Protein backbone atom coordinates (compact mmCIF):
# COMPACT_ATOMS: atom_id res chain seq x y z
CA UNK A 1 0.00 0.00 0.00
CA UNK A 2 1.12 3.52 -0.76
CA UNK A 3 2.14 5.35 2.39
CA UNK A 4 0.31 8.32 3.79
CA UNK A 5 2.31 11.48 4.56
CA UNK A 6 2.51 10.62 8.23
CA UNK A 7 3.90 7.16 7.60
CA UNK A 8 6.44 8.63 5.23
CA UNK A 9 7.51 11.25 7.77
CA UNK A 10 8.00 8.42 10.28
CA UNK A 11 10.25 6.55 7.85
CA UNK A 12 12.40 9.62 7.27
CA UNK A 13 12.65 10.20 11.01
CA UNK A 14 13.86 6.60 11.37
CA UNK A 15 16.50 7.13 8.68
CA UNK A 16 18.03 10.18 10.35
CA UNK A 17 21.09 9.03 12.29
CA UNK A 18 21.03 9.71 16.05
CA UNK A 19 22.52 13.02 17.18
CA UNK A 20 22.28 14.54 13.70
CA UNK A 21 21.85 18.27 13.22
CA UNK A 22 18.81 18.57 10.99
CA UNK A 23 16.92 21.32 9.19
CA UNK A 24 13.35 20.57 8.16
CA UNK A 25 11.99 22.63 5.27
CA UNK A 26 8.77 24.57 5.40
CA UNK A 27 5.57 22.58 4.83
CA UNK A 28 5.39 18.80 4.80
CA UNK A 29 8.97 18.19 5.96
CA UNK A 30 8.04 19.87 9.25
CA UNK A 31 6.03 16.76 10.09
CA UNK A 32 9.21 14.70 10.41
CA UNK A 33 9.73 16.42 13.78
CA UNK A 34 6.64 14.69 15.18
CA UNK A 35 8.37 11.34 14.73
CA UNK A 36 11.76 12.17 16.22
CA UNK A 37 12.03 10.77 19.73
CA UNK A 38 13.83 12.79 22.40
CA UNK A 39 16.18 9.82 22.86
CA UNK A 40 17.40 10.17 19.26
CA UNK A 41 19.47 13.17 20.23
CA UNK A 42 18.57 14.81 16.93
CA UNK A 43 18.95 18.60 17.11
CA UNK A 44 16.74 20.76 14.92
CA UNK A 45 18.14 23.87 13.28
CA UNK A 46 15.89 26.63 12.04
CA UNK A 47 17.50 29.08 9.63
CA UNK A 48 15.97 32.09 11.35
CA UNK A 49 18.57 31.64 14.04
CA UNK A 50 18.17 28.76 16.46
CA UNK A 51 19.46 25.32 17.32
CA UNK A 52 17.51 22.81 19.41
CA UNK A 53 14.14 24.07 18.36
CA UNK A 54 11.25 22.32 20.12
CA UNK A 55 7.73 21.38 19.00
CA UNK A 56 5.05 23.84 17.92
CA UNK A 57 3.94 26.24 20.64
CA UNK A 58 0.34 26.12 21.79
CA UNK A 59 -1.79 28.41 23.94
CA UNK A 60 0.23 30.16 26.59
CA UNK A 61 3.51 28.98 25.08
CA UNK A 62 3.11 31.17 22.01
CA UNK A 63 5.81 33.85 21.93
CA UNK A 64 5.88 36.18 18.95
CA UNK A 65 9.69 36.34 19.24
CA UNK A 66 10.05 32.58 18.80
CA UNK A 67 9.07 31.16 15.43
CA UNK A 68 10.33 28.61 12.93
CA UNK A 69 11.32 29.23 9.31
CA UNK A 70 7.66 28.98 8.36
CA UNK A 71 6.94 31.83 10.83
CA UNK A 72 4.91 29.51 13.05
CA UNK A 73 5.30 29.73 16.83
CA UNK A 74 7.58 27.07 18.27
CA UNK A 75 9.25 26.24 21.57
CA UNK A 76 12.80 26.02 22.87
CA UNK A 77 14.42 22.85 24.22
CA UNK A 78 17.14 22.76 26.90
CA UNK A 79 20.50 23.33 25.25
CA UNK A 80 19.07 25.72 22.67
CA UNK A 81 21.08 28.60 21.29
CA UNK A 82 20.19 31.71 19.30
CA UNK A 83 22.34 33.40 16.66
CA UNK A 84 21.97 35.93 13.88
CA UNK A 85 21.27 35.20 10.25
CA UNK A 86 24.85 35.29 8.97
CA UNK A 87 25.89 32.81 11.64
CA UNK A 88 22.84 30.66 10.95
CA UNK A 89 23.60 30.41 7.24
CA UNK A 90 27.26 29.81 8.04
CA UNK A 91 26.08 26.57 9.65
CA UNK A 92 24.13 25.65 6.55
CA UNK A 93 26.55 26.74 3.85
CA UNK A 94 29.65 25.62 5.74
CA UNK A 95 28.52 21.99 5.71
CA UNK A 96 27.76 21.72 9.41
CA UNK A 97 24.22 20.34 9.08
CA UNK A 98 24.05 16.58 8.73
CA UNK A 99 20.66 16.36 7.05
CA UNK A 100 18.01 18.61 5.63
CA UNK A 101 14.59 17.49 4.45
CA UNK A 102 13.02 19.54 1.68
CA UNK A 103 9.93 19.43 -0.47
CA UNK A 104 10.35 19.47 -4.25
CA UNK A 105 8.61 20.09 -7.55
CA UNK A 106 11.08 17.88 -9.38
CA UNK A 107 14.21 15.86 -8.61
CA UNK A 108 16.46 14.56 -11.38
CA UNK A 109 18.07 11.13 -11.23
CA UNK A 110 21.46 12.81 -10.78
CA UNK A 111 20.25 14.71 -7.73
CA UNK A 112 19.40 18.05 -9.34
CA UNK A 113 16.64 19.78 -7.38
CA UNK A 114 13.82 22.10 -8.47
CA UNK A 115 11.72 23.31 -5.57
CA UNK A 116 11.56 27.08 -5.55
CA UNK A 117 9.93 28.42 -8.68
CA UNK A 118 7.09 26.94 -10.65
CA UNK A 119 8.51 28.47 -13.80
CA UNK A 120 5.15 30.06 -14.62
CA UNK A 121 5.49 33.50 -16.15
CA UNK A 122 3.32 35.30 -13.61
CA UNK A 123 4.67 33.54 -10.52
CA UNK A 124 6.27 35.74 -7.89
CA UNK A 125 9.66 34.14 -7.27
CA UNK A 126 10.53 33.41 -3.64
CA UNK A 127 13.61 31.39 -2.80
CA UNK A 128 14.09 31.88 0.94
CA UNK A 129 16.81 29.58 2.24
CA UNK A 130 16.11 26.74 -0.19
CA UNK A 131 19.22 27.22 -2.33
CA UNK A 132 21.46 27.57 0.72
CA UNK A 133 20.08 24.41 2.28
CA UNK A 134 20.27 22.49 -0.96
CA UNK A 135 24.00 23.04 -1.36
CA UNK A 136 24.89 23.19 2.31
CA UNK A 137 23.60 20.17 4.18
CA UNK A 138 25.74 17.03 3.99
CA UNK A 139 22.72 14.97 3.01
CA UNK A 140 19.64 16.42 1.35
CA UNK A 141 16.52 14.31 1.64
CA UNK A 142 13.49 15.21 -0.44
CA UNK A 143 9.97 14.41 0.69
CA UNK A 144 7.46 14.69 -2.14
CA UNK A 145 4.64 12.94 -3.93
CA UNK A 146 5.94 10.87 -6.84
CA UNK A 147 3.48 12.47 -9.27
CA UNK A 148 2.11 15.97 -9.59
CA UNK A 149 -1.57 16.84 -9.73
CA UNK A 150 -1.58 16.24 -13.47
CA UNK A 151 -0.11 12.78 -12.91
CA UNK A 152 3.32 13.65 -14.28
CA UNK A 153 6.34 12.08 -12.57
CA UNK A 154 8.34 14.39 -10.30
CA UNK A 155 11.38 12.09 -10.38
CA UNK A 156 12.69 12.98 -13.82
CA UNK A 157 15.64 12.41 -16.17
CA UNK A 158 16.30 16.15 -16.12
CA UNK A 159 14.47 18.96 -14.32
CA UNK A 160 12.34 21.16 -16.56
CA UNK A 161 11.48 23.62 -13.79
CA UNK A 162 13.99 26.22 -12.57
CA UNK A 163 16.77 24.60 -10.54
CA UNK A 164 17.42 25.14 -6.86
CA UNK A 165 20.73 23.31 -6.80
CA UNK A 166 22.87 20.99 -8.88
CA UNK A 167 23.37 17.35 -7.94
CA UNK A 168 22.55 18.10 -4.32
CA UNK A 169 19.80 15.60 -3.41
CA UNK A 170 20.89 12.26 -2.03
CA UNK A 171 17.56 10.59 -1.32
CA UNK A 172 13.91 10.97 -2.34
CA UNK A 173 11.00 9.79 -0.21
CA UNK A 174 7.65 9.34 -1.94
CA UNK A 175 4.40 7.58 -1.12
CA UNK A 176 5.28 4.73 -3.50
CA UNK A 177 9.03 4.34 -3.13
CA UNK A 178 12.27 5.59 -1.64
CA UNK A 179 15.10 6.33 -4.08
CA UNK A 180 18.76 7.16 -3.80
CA UNK A 181 19.79 9.64 -6.46
CA UNK A 182 23.18 10.91 -7.52
CA UNK A 183 26.00 10.30 -9.99
CA UNK A 184 24.94 6.67 -10.35
CA UNK A 185 21.36 7.61 -11.21
CA UNK A 186 18.22 6.57 -9.39
CA UNK A 187 18.32 3.50 -7.17
CA UNK A 188 15.17 2.03 -5.63
CA UNK A 189 15.68 1.45 -1.91
CA UNK A 190 12.14 0.51 -0.96
CA UNK A 191 8.68 0.28 -2.50
CA UNK A 192 5.23 0.60 -0.99
CA UNK A 193 2.43 -1.25 -2.73
CA UNK A 194 4.12 -1.25 -6.12
CA UNK A 195 6.79 -3.37 -7.79
CA UNK A 196 10.00 -1.98 -9.24
CA UNK A 197 8.69 -2.89 -12.67
CA UNK A 198 5.50 -1.04 -11.82
CA UNK A 199 7.62 2.01 -11.04
CA UNK A 200 9.56 1.59 -14.27
CA UNK A 201 6.30 1.70 -16.22
CA UNK A 202 5.30 4.98 -14.67
CA UNK A 203 8.69 6.78 -14.63
CA UNK A 204 10.95 7.93 -17.46
CA UNK A 205 14.04 7.36 -15.35
CA UNK A 206 16.21 4.21 -15.52
CA UNK A 207 15.97 2.54 -12.12
CA UNK A 208 18.42 0.20 -10.52
CA UNK A 209 17.78 -1.66 -7.30
CA UNK A 210 19.73 -1.46 -4.07
Amino acid at each position, binding site marked *: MALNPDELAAIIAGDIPPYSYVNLGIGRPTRVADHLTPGSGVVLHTENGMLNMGPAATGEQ*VDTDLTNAGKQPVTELPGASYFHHADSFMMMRGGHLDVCVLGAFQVAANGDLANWHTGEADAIP*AVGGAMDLAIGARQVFVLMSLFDKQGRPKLVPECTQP*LTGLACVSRVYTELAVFDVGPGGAVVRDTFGITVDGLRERLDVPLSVL
Partner: protein
Amino acid sequence: MSQVQHLDSVDEAVAGIEDGSTVLVGGFGLAGMPFDLIDGLIRQGATDLTIVCNNAGNGEVGLAALLQAGRVRKVICSFPRQSDSYVFDALYRAGRVELEVVPQGNLAERMRAAGAGIGGFYSPTAVGTMLAEGKETRTIDGRDYLLELPIRGDVALVSAHRADRMGNLVYRKTARNFGPVMATAAETTIVQVHEVVPTGELDPEAVVTPGIFVDRVVRVAPRHYTVQGAR
Protein backbone atom coordinates in the same frame (compact mmCIF):
# COMPACT_ATOMS: atom_id res chain seq x y z
CA MET B 1 31.32 61.85 16.80
CA SER B 2 29.94 58.44 17.43
CA GLN B 3 27.89 59.18 20.51
CA VAL B 4 24.73 57.14 20.51
CA GLN B 5 21.68 59.36 20.41
CA HIS B 6 18.88 58.34 22.72
CA LEU B 7 15.77 59.92 21.33
CA ASP B 8 12.44 60.56 22.96
CA SER B 9 10.27 59.78 19.98
CA VAL B 10 10.18 57.56 16.97
CA ASP B 11 9.74 60.62 14.77
CA GLU B 12 13.05 62.04 15.97
CA ALA B 13 14.66 58.64 15.49
CA VAL B 14 13.79 58.46 11.79
CA ALA B 15 14.39 62.13 11.04
CA GLY B 16 16.53 62.91 8.01
CA ILE B 17 16.07 59.71 6.02
CA GLU B 18 16.35 60.88 2.43
CA ASP B 19 14.35 60.07 -0.67
CA GLY B 20 16.08 57.37 -2.68
CA SER B 21 17.75 55.79 0.36
CA THR B 22 18.52 52.12 0.69
CA VAL B 23 16.92 51.02 3.95
CA LEU B 24 17.79 47.70 5.60
CA VAL B 25 14.77 46.51 7.55
CA GLY B 26 15.18 43.81 10.17
CA GLY B 27 12.78 41.04 10.95
CA PHE B 28 11.86 37.61 9.69
CA GLY B 29 8.14 37.70 9.05
CA LEU B 30 6.88 39.67 12.04
CA ALA B 31 9.54 38.55 14.55
CA GLY B 32 12.04 41.35 14.93
CA MET B 33 10.17 43.65 12.57
CA PRO B 34 10.78 47.27 13.62
CA PHE B 35 7.10 48.23 13.40
CA ASP B 36 7.37 51.56 15.16
CA LEU B 37 10.32 52.76 13.09
CA ILE B 38 8.53 51.78 9.89
CA ASP B 39 5.41 53.64 11.01
CA GLY B 40 7.69 56.59 11.75
CA LEU B 41 9.23 56.31 8.31
CA ILE B 42 5.76 56.41 6.74
CA ARG B 43 4.98 59.62 8.67
CA GLN B 44 8.42 61.01 7.85
CA GLY B 45 7.62 60.78 4.16
CA ALA B 46 10.83 59.59 2.49
CA THR B 47 10.02 57.96 -0.82
CA ASP B 48 11.63 56.17 -3.77
CA LEU B 49 13.18 53.79 -1.25
CA THR B 50 15.01 50.55 -1.85
CA ILE B 51 14.07 48.18 0.95
CA VAL B 52 16.29 45.24 1.91
CA CYS B 53 14.41 42.80 4.10
CA ASN B 54 13.96 39.05 4.22
CA ASN B 55 10.28 39.30 3.36
CA ALA B 56 8.10 41.83 1.59
CA GLY B 57 5.57 42.52 4.29
CA ASN B 58 2.76 40.73 6.07
CA GLY B 59 -0.87 41.78 6.24
CA GLU B 60 -1.14 45.54 6.27
CA VAL B 61 1.33 46.39 9.02
CA GLY B 62 5.03 47.24 9.05
CA LEU B 63 6.68 46.86 5.69
CA ALA B 64 3.35 46.11 4.02
CA ALA B 65 2.06 49.50 5.19
CA LEU B 66 5.16 51.23 3.81
CA LEU B 67 4.63 49.48 0.48
CA GLN B 68 0.94 50.37 0.53
CA ALA B 69 1.89 54.02 1.07
CA GLY B 70 3.77 53.91 -2.25
CA ARG B 71 7.17 54.78 -0.84
CA VAL B 72 9.08 51.79 -2.15
CA ARG B 73 10.71 51.65 -5.54
CA LYS B 74 12.44 48.31 -5.11
CA VAL B 75 12.47 45.38 -2.72
CA ILE B 76 15.55 43.19 -2.27
CA CYS B 77 14.50 40.10 -0.35
CA SER B 78 14.65 36.33 -0.25
CA PHE B 79 10.99 35.47 0.20
CA PRO B 80 8.40 38.00 -0.92
CA ARG B 81 5.51 35.65 -1.43
CA GLN B 82 3.76 34.58 1.74
CA SER B 83 0.21 33.68 2.66
CA ASP B 84 -0.44 37.26 3.77
CA SER B 85 1.83 39.26 1.44
CA TYR B 86 -1.12 40.49 -0.62
CA VAL B 87 -0.04 44.13 -0.53
CA PHE B 88 3.31 43.35 -2.13
CA ASP B 89 1.77 40.82 -4.51
CA ALA B 90 -0.68 43.36 -5.89
CA LEU B 91 1.95 46.11 -6.31
CA TYR B 92 4.34 43.68 -7.98
CA ARG B 93 1.76 42.37 -10.41
CA ALA B 94 0.79 45.96 -11.20
CA GLY B 95 4.44 46.70 -12.03
CA ARG B 96 4.62 49.31 -9.29
CA VAL B 97 7.52 47.80 -7.38
CA GLU B 98 10.76 46.18 -8.53
CA LEU B 99 11.90 42.91 -7.00
CA GLU B 100 15.36 41.40 -6.62
CA VAL B 101 15.22 37.93 -5.16
CA VAL B 102 18.38 36.95 -3.27
CA PRO B 103 18.90 33.60 -1.55
CA GLN B 104 18.60 34.14 2.18
CA GLY B 105 22.16 33.12 2.94
CA ASN B 106 23.55 35.45 0.29
CA LEU B 107 21.35 38.24 1.59
CA ALA B 108 22.79 37.88 5.09
CA GLU B 109 26.35 37.37 3.90
CA ARG B 110 26.27 40.27 1.44
CA MET B 111 25.26 42.62 4.24
CA ARG B 112 27.90 41.15 6.52
CA ALA B 113 30.46 41.77 3.77
CA ALA B 114 29.41 45.42 3.64
CA GLY B 115 29.82 45.69 7.40
CA ALA B 116 33.15 43.89 7.36
CA GLY B 117 34.82 45.82 4.55
CA ILE B 118 34.88 42.76 2.28
CA GLY B 119 34.80 43.74 -1.39
CA GLY B 120 33.02 40.60 -2.52
CA PHE B 121 32.99 36.87 -1.87
CA TYR B 122 32.53 33.58 -3.66
CA SER B 123 29.33 31.90 -2.57
CA PRO B 124 28.38 28.27 -3.17
CA THR B 125 24.67 29.12 -3.28
CA ALA B 126 22.65 29.37 -6.52
CA VAL B 127 25.36 27.98 -8.80
CA GLY B 128 23.72 26.67 -11.98
CA THR B 129 20.35 28.29 -11.24
CA MET B 130 18.57 31.21 -12.85
CA LEU B 131 19.69 33.37 -9.93
CA ALA B 132 23.26 32.88 -11.20
CA GLU B 133 22.50 34.78 -14.38
CA GLY B 134 24.87 37.69 -14.91
CA LYS B 135 27.10 36.66 -12.02
CA GLU B 136 30.74 35.62 -12.36
CA THR B 137 31.28 31.90 -11.77
CA ARG B 138 34.63 30.69 -10.49
CA THR B 139 35.95 27.26 -9.66
CA ILE B 140 38.05 27.20 -6.51
CA ASP B 141 39.55 24.00 -5.20
CA GLY B 142 37.25 21.98 -7.46
CA ARG B 143 33.97 23.60 -6.45
CA ASP B 144 31.96 26.24 -8.31
CA TYR B 145 31.05 29.55 -6.71
CA LEU B 146 29.35 32.80 -7.67
CA LEU B 147 30.83 36.21 -6.97
CA GLU B 148 28.53 38.12 -4.65
CA LEU B 149 28.92 41.81 -3.85
CA PRO B 150 28.17 43.69 -0.63
CA ILE B 151 24.77 45.21 0.10
CA ARG B 152 25.15 48.49 1.98
CA GLY B 153 22.38 50.49 3.53
CA ASP B 154 22.10 54.20 4.01
CA VAL B 155 19.95 53.38 6.98
CA ALA B 156 19.17 50.24 8.98
CA LEU B 157 15.98 49.94 10.99
CA VAL B 158 16.39 47.31 13.67
CA SER B 159 14.27 46.04 16.54
CA ALA B 160 16.17 44.81 19.59
CA HIS B 161 15.09 43.84 23.06
CA ARG B 162 17.25 45.94 25.33
CA ALA B 163 19.93 48.63 24.98
CA ASP B 164 22.23 50.33 27.42
CA ARG B 165 23.21 54.00 27.25
CA MET B 166 26.21 53.17 25.05
CA GLY B 167 23.99 51.51 22.48
CA ASN B 168 25.00 47.94 23.26
CA LEU B 169 22.14 45.64 22.28
CA VAL B 170 20.67 42.30 23.17
CA TYR B 171 17.84 40.62 21.33
CA ARG B 172 15.17 38.07 22.25
CA LYS B 173 15.03 34.55 20.77
CA THR B 174 14.54 34.32 17.00
CA ALA B 175 13.66 38.02 16.82
CA ARG B 176 17.44 38.48 16.62
CA ASN B 177 17.60 37.23 13.00
CA PHE B 178 18.89 39.94 10.62
CA GLY B 179 19.22 42.75 13.18
CA PRO B 180 22.87 42.26 14.18
CA VAL B 181 23.99 41.91 10.57
CA MET B 182 22.09 44.94 9.30
CA ALA B 183 23.37 47.07 12.18
CA THR B 184 26.89 46.62 10.82
CA ALA B 185 26.02 47.35 7.19
CA ALA B 186 24.38 50.77 7.25
CA GLU B 187 25.70 54.30 7.42
CA THR B 188 23.11 55.09 10.11
CA THR B 189 21.67 52.37 12.32
CA ILE B 190 18.42 53.21 14.10
CA VAL B 191 17.18 50.83 16.76
CA GLN B 192 13.90 50.47 18.59
CA VAL B 193 14.08 48.66 21.92
CA HIS B 194 11.70 47.70 24.67
CA GLU B 195 13.98 48.78 27.46
CA VAL B 196 17.01 51.01 28.01
CA VAL B 197 19.14 50.03 30.98
CA PRO B 198 22.01 51.92 32.62
CA THR B 199 25.46 51.29 31.19
CA GLY B 200 27.03 48.35 32.96
CA GLU B 201 23.83 46.34 33.35
CA LEU B 202 24.26 44.23 30.22
CA ASP B 203 26.58 41.24 30.57
CA PRO B 204 29.66 42.11 28.45
CA GLU B 205 29.89 38.44 27.43
CA ALA B 206 26.33 38.48 26.11
CA VAL B 207 26.18 41.74 24.17
CA VAL B 208 25.18 40.81 20.62
CA THR B 209 25.51 44.18 18.88
CA PRO B 210 28.20 46.40 20.42
CA GLY B 211 27.33 50.08 20.54
CA ILE B 212 29.91 50.87 17.87
CA PHE B 213 27.34 49.78 15.29
CA VAL B 214 24.46 51.83 16.72
CA ASP B 215 23.66 55.48 16.01
CA ARG B 216 20.18 56.15 17.40
CA VAL B 217 18.03 54.38 19.97
CA VAL B 218 14.38 54.90 20.82
CA ARG B 219 12.32 53.04 23.37
CA VAL B 220 8.94 51.73 22.26
CA ALA B 221 6.23 49.70 23.96
CA PRO B 222 6.17 46.00 23.11
CA ARG B 223 3.56 45.37 20.47
CA HIS B 224 1.11 42.52 20.70
CA TYR B 225 0.03 40.83 17.55
CA THR B 226 -1.20 37.46 16.46
CA VAL B 227 1.22 35.01 14.93
CA GLN B 228 -0.04 33.20 11.89
CA GLY B 229 -0.30 29.48 12.36
CA ALA B 230 -0.56 29.74 16.13
CA ARG B 231 -2.50 26.77 17.35
